[in-house]
């Protein structure tokens, strides 16, 4: 929609700076990617055999509930459920674009969007906190490891880094819970204490109230560790490797020959260059966090999007599952876009070439 509006204007480039032109170009590729993604997701959620509506009606009838024929007819009509899959796909997309209607959750018995909207702010908040944790800890440790190469600290960090990447995060979650259970006598399960949960359910508390509640942060510790460790260790490893590469560059020698201090060499020259793969790994980090949050479905029982996806897949609630995948994909694509912009800001060469160097 956005694109056609810009096209309609006379051919005059409103963007004079290379940076603005770069962002404009990147945003344009956003649309086809989201379209291909939605198609792919729809095909996937369409794969399981059987027709949801029939199963849904059968389920309702078996429970002895009254099935509203009118409602069913409306659903059929709205999503083209008795038509071939591509018609269903176009109806789905059409409804999303025109009406912001992502379909109907058979499991929850109401439209998909509100079901997701309930957990979306918390999902984004938790993901951001986890990401911040990964970067704030991973980057300094990576630098330390590189600057003090082959020191004891470097060896320890290297070991931890490898272990963190080798440990499946669901098991890490179990071990952490077991550890806290032994030390404190209570297993921290779920993001909310019962008190918070009650307040949230009654509407007395909004998600942003929860964020400042001390109990929430106590509960957040394990999930952050579980979801963030994979990304943290990845950041640590790539930061170390990249820093070592940069420290071996000729321009470091040239800066040293100029009389620049070691600390300044590291922070002004190497760090900025070494951040490149870490920043371009931002979307990878986000997808690792989503992986972690999905698997924490069973183990940690968090009130975020991952567990909902798991339940939706188990219940074959196609629109809900598809939309959650779509939202996750959207967030990651957004992350890629963001990281490309940061990269272009960091590295003038990318800005001028107008593409990311990966």
């Amino acid at each position, binding site marked *: 929609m956005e694109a056609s509006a810009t096209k309609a204007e006379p051919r005059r480039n409103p963007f004079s700076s290379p940076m603005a032109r770069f962002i404009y170009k990147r945003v344009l590729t956003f649309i086809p990617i989201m379209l291909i993604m939605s198609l792919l997701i729809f095909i996937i959620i369409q794969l399981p055999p059987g027709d949801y509506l029939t199963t849904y009606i059968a389920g309702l009838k078996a429970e002895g509930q009254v099935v509203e024929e009118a409602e069913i007819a409306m659903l059929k009509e709205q999503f083209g459920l008795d038509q071939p899959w591509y018609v269903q796909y176009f109806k789905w997309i059409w409804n999303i674009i025109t009406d912001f209607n992502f379909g109907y959750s058979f499991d929850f018995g109401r439209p998909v969007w509100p079901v997701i909207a309930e957990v979306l702010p918390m999902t984004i908040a938790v993901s951001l906190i986890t990401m911040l944790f990964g970067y704030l800890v991973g980057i300094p440790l990576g630098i330390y490891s590189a600057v003090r190469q082959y020191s004891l600290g470097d060896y320890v960090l290297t070991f931890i880094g490898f272990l963190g990447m080798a440990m499946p995060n669901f098991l890490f979650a179990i071990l952490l819970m077991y550890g806290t259970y032994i030390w404190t006598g209570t297993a921290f399960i779920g993001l909310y204490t019962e008190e918070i949960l009650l307040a949230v359910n009654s509407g007395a508390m909004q998600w942003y109230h929860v964020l400042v509640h001390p109990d929430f942060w106590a509960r957040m510790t394990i999930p952050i560790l579980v979801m963030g460790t994979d990304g943290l260790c990845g950041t640590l490893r790539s930061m170390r490797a990249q820093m070592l590469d940069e420290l071996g*560059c*000729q*321009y470091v*020698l*040239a*800066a*040293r*020959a*100029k*009389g*620049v*201090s*070691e600390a300044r060499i590291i922070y*002004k*020259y190497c760090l*900025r*260059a070494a951040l490149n793969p870490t920043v371009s790994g931002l979307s990878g980090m986000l997808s690792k966090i989503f992986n972690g949050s999905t698997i924490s479905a069973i183990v940690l029982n968090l009130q975020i999007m991952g567990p909902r996806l798991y339940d939706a897949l188990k219940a074959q609630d196609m629109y809900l599952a598809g939309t959650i995948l779509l939202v996750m994909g959207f967030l990651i694509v957004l992350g890629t876009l963001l990281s490309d912009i940061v990269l272009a800001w*960091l*590295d*003038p*060469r990318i800005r*001028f070439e107008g593409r990311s160097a990966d």
Partner: protein
Amino acid sequence: MEMNNQPIIQVKNLCVDIKTDEGTLTPVRGVDFEIRPGETLGLVGESGCGKSLTSKAILAINQKKCVSSGEILFRDDKEDTVDILTLDPRGKQIRDIRGRQISMIFQEPMVAFSPMYTIGNQINECTRLHITKDKKESKRITLEMMKKVGIANAEKRYDQYPHEFSGGMLQRALIAMALVCKPRLLIADEPTTALDVTIQAQILELMKELQKELGMAILFITHDLGTVAKMCDRVAVMYLGKIVETGTAREIYKNPQHPYTRGLMGSVHKIGTLKADRLFSIEGTVPLALNLGPGCGFYDRCLDRIEGVCDKADPALTCLGGEHCVACHKCRKEGV
């Protein structure tokens, strides 16, 4: 030129050791030379003979695994003499010498600048570190130097990134960065090898002009004898971590004594010689500076070796008269 003819730098018995898994390498095995104000000393040798390590040792910017020993006495502009090797390589004192008193031009200008910052920023960093903290003043000084090295349109170039520069322009910028604080000694480590021949000549010409104007001394490191002839007052020929012959450029060219120097001279194509002679080449390769025997380092490749003498003891640098010294048993025996 300065009237005071005391050397500004004296390198005495400089050794550089590198610890590796297979043992300790000694790529620089006792180098002595001195440079007087306003003079250009050419340090000549094949790749791997230790020239670059020697030059980096002067700035104490070798990698951590390289250990330098000996003495490097530097006389700064306040006439104080310090031994650079005794300074902490990360400390304030050496950092004040680097860039301010001694600066360096690198072989490949394309990688000597960080791609992340503008050229102006990187040259100006030097000015701000050593001359003035005042932003306007330092930018003025930087721009002035950029103009002086022949960067046209300096104001615009100041805000451009290295990838927008050509190789020759970058080398000019690198020279500007090295000279912006008007150092007493400039180390030029093969400054023209990565450049086109026409640009090489321009850069050399530029360096000569600036030397005249600023009155600095130059340590010119190269493997190209043609450049040496053009640039240098004196020459030191290095082989396998040692200086094997030293003298004024004229003497070395007219009357090379060491078999290695003679080999080097023979491998230069001379324009104007009528005979289409084959270029002379020195047989073999430079041995690894690991577990060297007691004899002369050039023994294996030498055409004039004396068995029983040259493989028993390493010859010391002996003066033949004037500035001309050579480290060879044969030359001594013949009593030139």
